[in-house]
């Protein structure tokens, strides 16, 4: 199944989560984008186009492209599950605690809340500071969001051109962090 996205309102230029290629998804940006999503079902010999008019883009809605959201959320969930079941070798070698259930839980919550806005992390890695580190890229800047095993949250923004830190703050809650990431991506 190939999902084709015909609207540029989706944040694909913010980086693709931990994989240089996305299987089964083609991004086709035309000169006159159509504001709907359709799915090309090429299973077998019958190539049927299903016009998903019910999925019409609407910026006031937070879940307008369920297919894309589902794809990325599933991919990230698989990554989280992999990290849960496969302890990181480097953390073992360095005698650093693996990310715990609390940090995985917070990560999962963050991913799901951001997915409602079609925002997905560029990378999700176990942090050497004990927890999870999510990376979000936008226009030469990278926001590193750290979820510590202790439940503390914090972020730092790096300007990759100037090699400078532009912001560094602790955050009291997941909701505040989601708001911060949305603002960062919207700039």
């Amino acid at each position, binding site marked *: 199944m190939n999902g084709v996205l015909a609207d540029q309102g989706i944040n694909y230029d913010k980086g693709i989560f931990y994989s240089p290629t996305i299987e089964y998804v083609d991004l086709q940006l035309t000169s006159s984008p159509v504001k709907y999503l359709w799915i090309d079902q090429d299973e077998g010999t019958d190539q049927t186009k299903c016009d998903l008019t019910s999925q019409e883009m609407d910026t006031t809605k937070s879940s307008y492209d369920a297919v894309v959201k589902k794809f990325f959320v599933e991919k990230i969930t698989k990554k989280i599950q992999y990290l849960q079941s496969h302890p*990181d070798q480097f*953390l073992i070698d360095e005698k650093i605690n693996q990310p715990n259930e609390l940090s995985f839980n917070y990560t999962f919550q963050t991913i799901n809340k951001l997915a409602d806005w079609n925002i997905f992390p560029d990378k999700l*890695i176990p942090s*050497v500071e004990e927890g999870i*580190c999510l990376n979000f890229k936008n226009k030469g800047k990278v926001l590193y969001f750290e979820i*510590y095993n202790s439940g503390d949250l*914090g972020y730092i923004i*790096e300007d990759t051109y100037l090699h*400078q830190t532009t912001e*560094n703050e602790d955050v009291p809650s997941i909701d505040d962090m989601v708001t911060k990431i949305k603002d960062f991506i919207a700039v």
Partner: protein
Amino acid sequence: MQKGRKVYSPHFILSFNYMFARCPRNDWESGEDYPNFGQIRSDQSFNWSVFSIPLWTRFTDAQEYRDGYGVIGYKVKTIRETHIINPVFENDTFNILHKPLLNNYSHCELAQLKEVTKKQKRDLRMTFKHKCIRPLYPLKDRSKTQLMFDYSRMYLHRFVFWIRIALSTTTQE
């Protein structure tokens, strides 16, 4: 091996020496920025350039060689003068202590002389990211020329180190 050899005071760890550290690969792909911020530790241990080349840093404490790990290095000056590079830190917040292990005589640790918050640790790690050298990327090897350079640097640093020791001994006498 430590073999009962001396532990040196921070006084003998010279500002132009390098501290080499292992870094994980995670999802890094060739051509991407390395290391990722999430891979840089604030509570870091190092191999001292007086007794080690970057390649040896890939050996874990259990003497297992990890070619999947990258190696990064910081100048001692960067660590000691973090307060100049980044004014959020007070003077003398960090130093380096020589703490030899049974299998690694060059082993050093970053000492935090004052309390450092998580926020400050993020600042420190970002400073490290911007100021580090990257002698080895994950899964990459040093060429023979690079290895010769690494050995030359180690022996040069060791030569200056011994001069410093000798001068120190003479002064005490």
